[in-house]
């Protein structure tokens, strides 16, 4: 059985209904454990004091903010190439989640930046990139809302997602060129495998990141189900209307 068989809405709904309870429990468990562990169980940083506890919200949400867009890019491509409706609806479902994740990353970043850098906001490349990402999410969601025909909306938002991705990367480099920035380097460099975060902070952070990831997954599955039901209701309504 190929993975594409889950592109069928009915099959997708059946599967997602089955896994969702586990996902929700696991997501809630990881988020709660990660945050409580981080909040109560870790020492203060010798330079940053207790503000380091914000990392358990800031890093996971920032990670998911980018991953959500990345997921939308992939599902948009799948829609454009293979025309699977579930894929397009998953992209639609993920956008608000990504938007909120971006917002959390921005808010926690600002609250963290205030005591550390002495300012709520700095036009630092990372902060600025996230602000731009936020705008992209807004535009993407607004375009979905504005187009009546669902397939046309899926087509146009997919292309916007594609073009937007290119421009988002371009903006990232432009912003870096424009201002070198205050923000510390990446916390989890994938390539080198070396962490700039010590173990005491790392394990609760990892738990929290897994939790945010699972939460994202659970939310997207749930919201995709919602979109599928709305689409089905609309399809039935159109046809019922034409009988008369």
């Amino acid at each position, binding site marked *: 059985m190929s993975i594409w068989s889950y592109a069928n809405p009915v099959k997708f709904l059946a599967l997602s209904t089955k896994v969702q309870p586990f996902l929700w429990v696991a997501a809630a468990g990881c988020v709660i454990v990660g945050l409580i562990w981080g909040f109560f169980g870790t020492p203060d940083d010798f330079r940053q004091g207790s503000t380091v506890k914000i990392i358990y919200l800031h890093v996971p949400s920032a990670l998911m903010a980018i991953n959500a867009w990345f997921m939308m890019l992939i599902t948009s491509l799948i829609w454009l190439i293979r025309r699977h409706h579930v894929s397009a609806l998953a992209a639609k479902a993920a956008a608000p989640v990504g938007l909120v994740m971006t917002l959390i990353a921005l808010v926690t970043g600002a609250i963290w930046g205030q005591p550390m850098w002495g300012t709520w906001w700095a036009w630092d490349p990372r902060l600025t990139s996230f602000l*731009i990402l936020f*705008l*992209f999410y*807004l*535009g993407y969601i*607004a*375009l979905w809302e*504005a*187009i009546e025909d669902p397939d*046309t909306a899926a*087509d*146009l938002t997919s*292309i*916007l997602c*594609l*073009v*937007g991705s290119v*421009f988002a990367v*371009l*903006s990232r*480099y*432009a*912003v870096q*060129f*424009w201002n070198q920035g205050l923000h510390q380097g990446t916390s989890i460099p994938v390539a080198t495998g070396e962490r700039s975060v010590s173990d005491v902070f790392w394990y609760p952070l990892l738990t929290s990141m897994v939790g945010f990831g699972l939460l994202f997954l659970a939310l997207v599955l749930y919201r995709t189900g919602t979109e599928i039901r709305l689409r089905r209701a609309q399809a039935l309504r159109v046809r019922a209307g034409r009988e008369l």
Partner: protein
Amino acid sequence: MIALLMRDLRLAFRAGGGFGLGLAFFLIVTTLVPFSVGPQPALLSTIAAGVLWLGALLACLLSLDRLLALDYEDGTLDLLLTAPLPLEAAVSVKALAHWITTGLPLVLAAPVLGVLLNLPGAGYGWLVISLAIGTPALSVIGTFGAALTVGIKRGGLLLSLLVLPLYVPTLIFGAEAARRGAAGLDPATPLLMLAGITLATIALMPFASAAVLRMGLR
């Protein structure tokens, strides 16, 4: 293709065509800046290059919602789609017409408005060059935004919301080049990046715009 270009230009210059509106908007924005930040010459001269770039960008944005919407309403787009002209070429030509009627006048007017904002003497040349290189990208990207929103009623605001984030790289490199020029620094790097963006968007965006138009008009 030339026929389409000539028609768009002629329409823009006829009464009600909207030519000059962008220019007037640019003038007003520039005039309002000193009212909002204060008249100190030193302050104005540091922000002049950036303000002029931003003003030009907003003026460009202003006329985008007429770019394809008018042709959509009177059926011209449907007829163009059935004509032997490739749609990619048609949207490129429309972007070019937009640039000639909106971007080019802004480029030419910018130095005059620079005087109002105390732009340093070294900055005039670089401002004009950076605008001349950058504004075509604004027109081409704007055409994509216009194509996305063509069938949408009251799509003007949405158009701005979609297009402005896409304008970020162009604005950063363009304004950076103009600012460096005004400060007497070497603007070569941002100018080359700007040129790269412009060339890439001119080469690639028409395909996206045409694809989006075909999907939207179906």
